[in-house]
């Protein structure tokens, strides 16, 4: 069952990601990205991470992608035009992404123990999750809040018109 779901939604995810890259119109790319995010949420769900799946849908499919569509609607970005720059991006981008992917995989596989990990019961209840989040991972959590604050400051400073 889990394997079947993995193949269905993993395939959907990969297909949508490909469509995201190949399609020319930004709104289609944004929609494909929503499909990618939602199928990722389903994959999390099959792994027993209910909260993570819900958070994925709310934050990524909901908030972040709403922001993207919002910007596309406001700027009315038209179809993508092929230029010399985009061809250069192809040449540099594909090997670059491959290299980054290999590097990250290597780091996670070899150094996973040093990055710190917490084991949760399976299926983990929300109670277990927050116990870990607010006890063992308190410092990263606080750092996150500072990061979010900086994000607010940055966004407002960039977008505000000086009067």
């Amino acid at each position, binding site marked *: 069952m889990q394997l079947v779901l993995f193949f269905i939604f993993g395939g959907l995810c990969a297909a949508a990601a490909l469509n995201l890259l190949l399609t020319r119109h930004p*709104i289609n790319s944004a*929609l494909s990205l*929503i499909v990618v995010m*939602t199928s990722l949420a389903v994959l999390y769900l099959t792994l027993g991470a*209910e*909260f993570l799946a*819900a*958070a994925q*849908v*709310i934050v990524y*499919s*909901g*908030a972040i*992608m*709403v922001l993207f*569509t*919002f910007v*596309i*609607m*406001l700027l009315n970005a038209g179809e993508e035009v092929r230029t010399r720059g985009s061809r250069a991006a192809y040449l540099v981008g594909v090997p670059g992404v491959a290299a980054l992917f290999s590097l990250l995989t290597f780091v996670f596989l070899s150094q996973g123990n040093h990055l710190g990990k917490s084991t949760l019961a399976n299926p983990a*209840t*929300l109670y277990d999750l927050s116990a870990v989040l607010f006890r063992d991972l308190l410092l990263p959590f606080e750092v996150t809040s500072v990061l979010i604050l900086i994000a607010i400051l940055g966004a407002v400073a960039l977008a505000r018109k000086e009067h």
Partner: protein
Amino acid sequence: MLTFLLLSLVKVIVVTVVLLLAVAYTVLLERKLVARIQNRWGPSRVGPFGLLQPLVDGAKSFLKEDIIPAGVYKPLYILSPIIALSCALLSIAVVPFGPERQFRGVDLFQITDLNVGLLVILGVTSVGIYGIALSGWSSNDKYSLLGSLRASAQIVSYELALGLSLVGVVLRAGSLSLRDIVNSQSAHGLFSWNVFGGFQFFAFFIYLMAAFAETNRSPFDLPEAESELVGGYHTEYSSMKFAMFFMSEYANMITVSCVATLLFLGGWTSPFGNLLPSLGGSILASFVPFCWFVLKVLFFLCLYVWVRGTLPRFRYDQLMAFGWKFLVPLAIANIIGTSLWLALRTS
């Protein structure tokens, strides 16, 4: 496994059909009540008291010609009413209509009980925005685009207040499952409901305001302010597609009323606690809580209509300022207050 699947399928279809019927009759209820508020009769010709009016309206929108204006971006133009209606119907998934009652492993009064029930509702609502955003964008119409921009900014702003107002309730119940939340308010009837006994009055107020804004209802119906924007984001839609937007709006209203009932008015619990004589364990007895639930939801729906018949529309900057500068800070204050109160009570 097969019986489970079949029974679940039957349950799902029954719930969806009942929801759609409820949508149709909410429209009639609204037209009737608003008419009485304005000293008119409302629909009264089709069937006794106009009771067949929703069905005739449905048939009409089915038979009308579907005009697709020139210059629309067709795939999204067709997709967006489907997104809107599907998300509206999907958000009923975790709403329990009564206490747990199993029949061959299938829960009769709820589609499914999840540990993260409340999050599922938030998630489905946040995806439902795309129906509105994309419809306005793909219509190639200035009114539609403005309407959908307004609607998205408004829904996004009030979703925040809505999410924050839920935290007080969750603090008290210690769970995100809607069934647990109702059970946490079932001890002493009326006095243990969150809105009274749980001191969640402010959260209730915030939730109610945010719910009105989320469903684009008066007095926050700026996205379809007809004096400025014709029909708002669905100006260019006709026949069945228009009807789907219409149905999704009312379905959202019903879901939001259900959730308000569950979170703040004790769900299916009776306001008199254990004072009423119990009917024993018969099948009939399990429908009494269901009736309480329906009554409370009906109360919210009438409130919606009453507000629509009474209050004028907000101005857009007032709307945004109300959301960001009043509701969100109030919600945060409510969270801090509730957590302090709970901490003092337990220690």
